[in-house]
């Protein structure tokens, strides 16, 4: 069997599992919704103040929602032994990991990106910032999923890996959120934002190239022990 049909069947399985586990996946989205809804209620109803905070609030909410969903990335495959079989498969494990992360983004990052404009109305974000907000969130959540997969792989062998995962991954998430919110805030303030976006895109492509290798190495450690 050639490479592509094989990858297609992996993709189909991951999507199928995501669909059957949809209540788990709804959790991060609801979390995102609740965080953003609570902000105007808890902080201030003043729209101009909210508009200043909007990019940051949306980004923080999306980042935490993404973090919440990472623990599930490899856990069930590790527990039922599928992960061992994936490392023994006849296609490179990096492509399998990339496929899994891609599906993870499709079912968390992409819905978060699509929800963001709706929620940004609640925070009074100017409408002209919406396209850039969505673009940065789409790129940003993809790099969060990619970077997060390293942490998920490192902690998959632990019974309670959630806390460690957060501690390991949080520092790596920081640059992503800085440039993600930076771009949107710059545009709202009428400043040039292209450099922020370029940095964010560079981080996404960088993690696209590096994180599958590191994730596979981490999975081999988790499985091999």
């Amino acid at each position, binding site marked *: 069997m050639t490479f592509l049909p094989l990858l297609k*069947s992996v993709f189909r399985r991951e999507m199928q599992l995501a669909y059957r586990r949809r209540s788990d996946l709804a959790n991060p989205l609801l979390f995102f919704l609740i965080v953003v809804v609570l902000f105007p209620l808890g902080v201030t109803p003043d729209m101009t103040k909210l508009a200043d905070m909007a990019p940051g609030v949306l980004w923080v909410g999306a980042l935490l929602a993404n973090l919440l969903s990472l623990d599930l990335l490899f856990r069930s495959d590790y527990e*039922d032994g599928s992960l061992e079989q994936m490392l023994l498969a006849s*296609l490179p494990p990096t492509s399998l990991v990339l496929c899994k992360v891609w599906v993870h983004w499709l079912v968390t990052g992409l819905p978060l990106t699509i929800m963001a404009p709706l929620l940004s109305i609640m925070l009074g974000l100017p409408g002209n910032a919406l396209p850039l907000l969505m673009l940065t969130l789409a790129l940003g959540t993809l790099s969060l999923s990619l970077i997060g997969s390293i942490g998920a792989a490192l902690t998959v062998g632990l019974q309670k890996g959630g806390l460690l995962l957060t501690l390991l991954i949080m520092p790596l998430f920081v640059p992503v959120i800085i440039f993600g919110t930076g771009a949107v805030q710059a545009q709202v303030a009428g400043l040039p934002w292209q450099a922020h976006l370029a940095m964010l895109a560079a981080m996404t492509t960088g993690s696209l190239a590096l994180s599958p290798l590191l994730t596979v190495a981490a999975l081999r450690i988790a499985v*091999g022990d």
Partner: protein
Amino acid sequence: MARVLSAVGLDCERDDRHLFRDLSFDVASGEILHLTGPNGSGKTTLLRRLVGISSVVDGDVSWFPDSPERTAEPCEKIWYIAHRPAVTLLQSPLENMAYALALHGIQVPESVVWDALETVGLRGFEDVPSHQLSAGQQRRVALARLYLPLEPDRVRAWVLDEPLTALDIEAVDRLKVRIIDYARAGGSVIMTSHHGLDSETVRTLELGAAL
């Protein structure tokens, strides 16, 4: 006879205990290697090292050392059925089989997969989510791939970790017959089990005895 596997100087130490030391053996095609030993003697660890997913065993393992082309990935030609049988509970037996075959790059008509599932006694359960099956039935899902009529050089060795657990008497007998038939057709089997296996091609390797 052509060697399928050659292991040299395997050494495993866990928690200050030597599970096995300087263990060397060959497996020829058509041979069944039966690993025995008490619980905790390192049988599973050894099997995991043989297929290449354990990092706690030192030594060299080479698959198909006599074969001229070394380019092919060895794991493509091996079925490894682990203690955790890699049956995804949210998927039906049919989907599990399709995925296992896809990962090995094996293409067979769907009817063949149905036949294999019927052979292991999962007729009527093909589309039931695996979490609704009993423990023995879940193992049968994993074992069904052993009943596929593949060409002998497609899958040349089986590495089975306790394949007979949780199975009923009839299924145990059927699997024993299947293992012996497979070895007779030129395949090699390396397995752990607490059940005996009666065939002239079985070689027993006992772990944990020399300590």
